């Protein structure tokens, strides 16, 4: 492993993007996990840990909510069932992080055990005492602190929030960790959550692969959408090849096609692409598209894709959402994606007819024409 003063910005941004997805699935405000990450990294650095430990705390905190992507709570589930399903959230997150590549040290395990309690009453494993890795305990303390700050409205001195942690000292949090956290906040009251860039380089984390793995997880939440990204990518490539538009790069369009899964972030199962050619549920779909654009804007390296993925619910005639853009004002790749999403959701028998019927209103006629010319794949 090579230590470096810089971090691959694409990796860093991919983590930001994925953390935003975790926030929304985990029922938190956008940016929550990154706040936790900044506190966890600065706290670890305050404890004079090795660069690898600081990076592990940072990335584990940033990704600690991502397991929520895999947890599908049935709508009619009782609170008890929802709670039990939630216990599998940390191990699911650890599996996603471990599959994404080589994060430093204990990153995946800190995600796995960030909800363990010092007294052995946490989840998923009821680990206790020193059996809980230090990094996991750090993420837990930082997480609890940010939640407490949010509950206080973010006002007042951070020291005033500490009493909420002390109530759990020796039960949820290790005494030594709370003690050090007190000292950390006392010394860093002004910059305890200032943005932090870990001093570490990853040899084996492919930023796009990390993002795409999460998109696959989102697609896999429902049986009928599992593998949706692959199908959309195939359709997009076929359309772009036939369209022959110099403004559209096939690989980027295909990547954007997979990113349309982000428009299902926080989905409770009510979103269906079957109605994408109709106005049924347009308001909800438009809001989700806007949310996906917000997620992409969280990561500067991917912000350019925000109007693309955020524009998939715009209608060619200007009556779509979220911005009511019309014709050429809609991003050209977004117009391709709109056709691909509809084609993927429809059956082979109905796709060509219904997509042809939507040309000029919902869909761009040129893109529809290219789609039909390439054999109307579904």
């Amino acid at each position, binding site marked *: 492993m090579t230590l470096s003063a810089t971090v691959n910005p694409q990796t860093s941004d991919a983590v930001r993007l994925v953390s935003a997805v975790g926030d929304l699935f985990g029922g938190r405000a956008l940016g929550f996990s990154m706040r936790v990450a900044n506190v966890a990294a600065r706290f670890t650095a305050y404890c004079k840990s090795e660069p690898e430990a600081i990076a592990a705390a940072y990335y584990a905190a940033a990704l600690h909510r991502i397991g929520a992507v895999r947890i599908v709570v049935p709508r009619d589930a009782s609170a008890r069932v929802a709670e039990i399903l939630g216990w599998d959230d940390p191990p699911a997150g650890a599996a996603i992080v471990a599959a994404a590549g080589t994060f430093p040290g*204990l990153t*995946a395990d800190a995600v796995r055990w960030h909800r363990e309690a010092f007294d052995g*009453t946490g989840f998923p*494993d009821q680990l*206790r005492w020193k059996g809980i*890795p230090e990094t996991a305990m750090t993420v837990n303390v930082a997480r609890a602190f940010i939640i407490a700050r949010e509950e206080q409205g973010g006002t007042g001195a951070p020291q005033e929030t500490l009493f909420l942690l002390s109530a759990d*000292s020796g039960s949820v949090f290790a005494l030594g960790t709370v003690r050090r956290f007190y000292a950390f906040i006392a010394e860093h009251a002004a910059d305890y959550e200032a943005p932090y860039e870990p001093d570490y380089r990853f040899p084996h984390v492919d930023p796009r692969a990390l993002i795409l793995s999460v998109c696959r997880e989102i697609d896999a939440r429902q049986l009928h959408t599992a593998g949706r990204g692959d199908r959309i990518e195939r359709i997009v490539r076929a359309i772009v090849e036939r369209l022959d538009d110099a403004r559209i790069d096939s690989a980027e369009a295909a990547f954007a096609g997979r990113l349309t899964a982000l428009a299902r972030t926080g989905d409770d199962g009510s979103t269906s692409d079957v109605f994408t050619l109709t106005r049924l549920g347009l308001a909800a779909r438009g809001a989700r598209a806007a949310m996906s654009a917000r997620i992409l804007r969280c990561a500067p390296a991917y912000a350019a894709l925000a109007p693309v993925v955020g524009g998939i619910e715009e209608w060619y005639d200007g009556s779509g959402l979220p911005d009511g853009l019309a014709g050429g004002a809609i991003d050209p790749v977004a117009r391709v994606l709109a056709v691909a999403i509809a084609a993927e959701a429809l059956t082979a028998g109905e796709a060509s007819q219904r997509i042809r019927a939507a040309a000029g209103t919902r869909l761009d006629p040129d893109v529809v024409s290219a789609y039909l010319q390439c054999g109307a794949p579904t």
Partner: protein
Amino acid sequence: MTELRAATRRIAGSRLLDLLLERSIESVVDPFMGLPTHLNYLKRHGIRVDGGDLLDWFVRAGEGLVVNDFTILREDEVAAIVEGTPGRVYPVDMFRAWDGVFFTHEQCQYLGIWHANIHDLRSDGQTGLAIAGLWHVLCYWLQKSQHPDEMPDVPASELAWRYIRETERLVCTNNARNTVRRADFSATLQASRAQCMYLSPPGRNSAAEVDARIWMWEAWWQGDPYLNVEHYFRDTVFGRRTNDHASYDNAVGLVLAAAEAIPYIVLQTRPRDAARFEALMRTFRKQVETVAPNAEETYIIARR
């Protein structure tokens, strides 16, 4: 005041589940289960589990966490455990030997009350959950006795209530007949038809160095503050002297030999001991692999 060890074995059901699912293993036996929260996790995810231990309170807790599927503790039942019934004569002096040594006078009285209340419960499941829940209170008190100013003062009954409730949340079913028994490893293994033995070998001389939080709870459950749990282990392989490599390896080897009929063995150890255990495992099994998910955990997995 007693010394509380910082280090403890990290036995994680979720990690174990990953290893088992990768190998399509559906049942596990752990002959040294300890407090079987890992078996409870495996049970919740559909794995059939058998456990064994020599300490009775571990086994009782296992009856609550592992064996019984639908145990419920209603509010009034929890209240009947954590509070003294007015008019009843309790053995409040039962743990007087610990008064001023490990606990306060009031805490010792509560230990006596809880001891009596728990022995009155008629359901094994409820008894097990209450034992596991109240054990957390003991740990809390011992921790607080060392750091009195850093932990909040919580009334004994409130603390007990909270921890029993925490433990009760873990009750689950997996439609399988899961078992725990108070027995030496050989009896546990003989009684089980599991596909896999999970083994986290007891430490060297562990019988003589049992954590205060463990032996004290056995003493509480037995109602004898002077109880020495060492005699439980006297006639077992790990109860003899296991200071040197040879005798310790011999003890572990006896366990591995007793598991001859079990298709898989998952042995959890630390990196520093991994090579020795792997070599030992190879004397019993031909297919051996080592999995080290992080720098602190090593699993040696052998297939028959």
